[in-house]
């Protein structure tokens, strides 16, 4: 019976107007996103090639990842040049910014954004009239007058509708991915392909959450218009309000010093050391070491505060499936905070490695300097406990919302 209901639902959906709309929409959006993000990635790649450090140049530079086409995250910032100077100072370059920095106030339309915002909405709009719509059209009474139990009916309806939603989405992704692959400068390794597959699976789980929410709302309301408004309200709450609220709360509870305050503190370290040297209280050989230690302490303190805020922000915002999905996607793509921590650690190690080299009058490190080498995190490292916890959260959300839809439907007045 379940199979019959699923097939009936798929047939009904495929011939519907909304299926055509979702197909056109997902294909247009995904192709537009890939077009924009591919251009963006190629520009960053070109800059990376230009900025490659020469021999003995104490600069750390990281190659942009092609996965940033799908989830850009912090990749643009990760791939800046980090030049090591006298006293262990790390000068962050801005020369890699191929894209006009003022453009940052436009939304980055990567695949993550398309799935998180638009496909999430599409999933809800696919489901909002699944039950209440059938009730209004009178077909719910007819369906349940057959020898079909409510659990089987709702499961069949859910599966049929969801399959109809994700099939055009997956097809659009495959078309887009095939087009990207044609470009000779975009090379995906087998690790990348594994990650892309994983991201696809998680995207499906994420869309299932929204589909279940839509289903739940549909089985809680008696009018399609109420179901629609409630769905839109929930979408706004989950996608925009909750993540922002978490960030706002974290900002209030865990303040961070401003860039100029940090600069001032760094200057104070310099002034203090120079002053102590003039007073004859410091050995000339120790100045650089002391400045380095002072900067390390300062940055360590800042990192601690920053981590505190991000952890707080993450913990609050992951109450929204949209945030949990974002964290998974950017961490898997290697463009998230996980990779950022890894990059920072690698740069600090590099700095310690070349610390003590001679410097010229401008503070530039001279002499033989080893080249910076960096490998992005492996899949297993990306799939750490936090990422798994976020995946778990999405699965739990699915379970909760579907169960709620199921329970509500058991008590649903079908008349």
């Amino acid at each position, binding site marked *: 019976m379940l199979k019959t209901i699923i097939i009936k639902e798929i047939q009904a959906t495929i011939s519907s107007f909304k299926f055509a709309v979702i197909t056109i929409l997902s294909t247009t959006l995904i192709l537009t996103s890939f*077009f924009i993000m591919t251009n963006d990635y190629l520009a960053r790649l070109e800059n990376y090639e230009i900025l490659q450090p020469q021999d003995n140049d104490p600069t750390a530079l990281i190659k942009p990842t092609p996965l940033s086409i799908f989830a850009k995250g912090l990749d643009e910032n990760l791939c800046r040049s980090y030049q090591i100077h006298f006293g262990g100072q790390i000068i962050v370059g801005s020369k890699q910014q191929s894209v006009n920095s003022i453009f940052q106030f436009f939304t980055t339309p990567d695949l993550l954004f398309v799935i998180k*915002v638009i496909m999430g909405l599409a999933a809800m709009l696919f489901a909002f009239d699944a039950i209440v719509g059938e009730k209004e059209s009178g077909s719910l009474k007819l369906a349940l007058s057959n020898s079909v139990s409510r659990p089987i009916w709702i499961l069949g309806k859910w599966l049929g509708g969801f399959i109809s939603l994700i099939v055009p989405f997956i097809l659009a992704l495959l078309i887009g991915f095939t087009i990207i692959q044609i470009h000779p400068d975009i090379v995906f390794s087998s690790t990348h392909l594994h990650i892309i597959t994983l991201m696809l699976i998680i995207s499906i789980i994420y869309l299932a959450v929204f589909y279940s929410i839509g289903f739940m709302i549909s089985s809680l*309301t008696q009018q399609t*218009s109420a179901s629609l408004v409630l769905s839109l*309200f929930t979408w*706004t709450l989950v996608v925009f309000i909750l993540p*922002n609220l978490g960030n706002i709360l974290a900002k209030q509870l865990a303040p961070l010093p401003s860039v100029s305050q940090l600069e001032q503190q760094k200057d104070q370290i310099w002034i203090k050391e120079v002053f102590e040297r003039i007073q004859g209280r410091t050995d000339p050989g120790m100045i650089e070491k002391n400045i380095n230690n002072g900067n390390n302490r300062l940055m360590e303190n800042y990192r601690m505060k920053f981590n505190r805020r991000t952890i707080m922000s993450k913990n609050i915002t992951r109450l929204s499936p949209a945030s949990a999905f974002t964290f998974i996607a950017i961490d898997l793509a290697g463009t998230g905070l996980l990779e950022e921590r890894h990059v920072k650690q690698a740069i600090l190690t590099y700095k310690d490695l070349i610390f003590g080299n001679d410097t010229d009058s401008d503070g530039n490190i001279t002499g033989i300097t080893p080249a910076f080498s960096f490998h992005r995190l492996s899949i297993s490292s990306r799939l750490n406990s936090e990422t798994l916890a976020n995946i778990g959260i999405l699965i739990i959300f699915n379970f909760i919302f579907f169960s709620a839809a199921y329970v509500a439907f058991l008590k649903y007045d079908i008349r």
Partner: protein
Amino acid sequence: MLHYLIDKELKEHITTPKMLITSGIILLVMIINGLVFNSQFIQQQQKMNQEIITNSNGLQDNAGSLFKLLFFKQKLVKPPSKLGFIAIAKEEVLPNGIKTNYYKETEPEHYKSQNNYFSRFRSLDWTFLLIYVISFVCLAFSYNAFSGEKVKGTLKLILSNNVSRGTVILGKLIGLHICISMPFFIGILINIIIIQLNPGIALTGGDYLIILIFTLVAFVFIAMNLLLGLFISSLTSKPAHTLNLLLIVWIMLVIIIPSVSWVFSQKIIDVASEEEIAIRLSNEIDKIYESGNYSWSWNGAWAGQQPNDTVKRRAAGIQATDAHRIMLYREYLDQKFKQTSLAIKLSKISPFSLFRFIGERFSDNGYFGFKRFIDQTRIYRATMNSFMTQKDQQDPDSFHLLWSEPWASGTFSSHKPVAFEEIPQFKYQPPELAEIWNRSILDISLLIAWCILLFAGTFIAFIRYDVR
């Protein structure tokens, strides 16, 4: 007859759960916006005040000698906007300061708590509420206006009365508009009350006028959204079709057009990378060195003497290098502005973008605020430099030769003290209402034109609509 139709629409929607939900979400966002703005504005204001005081103290400390003043690097900052609750406009990602002295000027810099992770979040401001929440609410209220009535059979009944189709459209539009504007207006009042409870934010009469005009523009925006819903509804015979079409239109106008605009802008206007600019500057400097018009010699014994030709040529060489550097980086920034401006113009094909940028203009945030700040810093630098040049000219002991090598130029310029009160100080001037109005009038007119166009479209489609 019109007021009966309005009355009917109001009664039909005002008691529904969707009205309750709509009011709830609007009020929630407005309360959050007010509370968050209050705390963030004060924090930012305190930080900026600190920067301004430090800068002023620096000026005072260096006013003892014009020579020191010439080299004192001032930190000019843009304070947070009092009307930022209208549109924060991702203000966190844009620089808000610049360092400058007589000889040099940095590129725009960030003097605020900013990190790349947190700047990814959106702010829950009025513009966000209107574009992402209220626009949807409008569509949810209007999508079944005609097709829904047709399905229920009530459309036939309405039109069997002595009522024109134009009046029906108008009645629906006004009725729905009141339903949505009411909670929005209450939300605005609550938001302003919360903001006004904070003694650190003093809104002036001019600010209230700006808020009032923006509120009126927001009402036009709400009307535009409702008309969009009515238009699509009058083109379809089933509410489900209307909804799906509206979804496509909304995504096109809110997401695709603004996102694609900056890509096209990048293709049309080319902006060099910083690396290329650095190379260009280096080439320019090489040209200056090789031109033979300047001298690079220096002898310590020349200090304090009447400047000889070699010193003058050296000073001129350094002055030319500095002038080139500033000019090149200004051109670079102007090119970025040009590119962004084109992206904004292209994105204004969408009425949602039109409204977004009206909001940014009114709040003096985003691109417009940033560009205005940069323009003002340039004017200030010119004024300050002319002031210092004049002071140097007035000193008979000075050789009036100013260039950016403190170790060499010290004895060729004035060391006389400068009265601190006379020194021009930088103070960012937010735009006056008249200026905002003049610059937004075209966008507002376009938004009204969208409304007229959609109303005309709805009217034509509805005349041909099969009500059976």
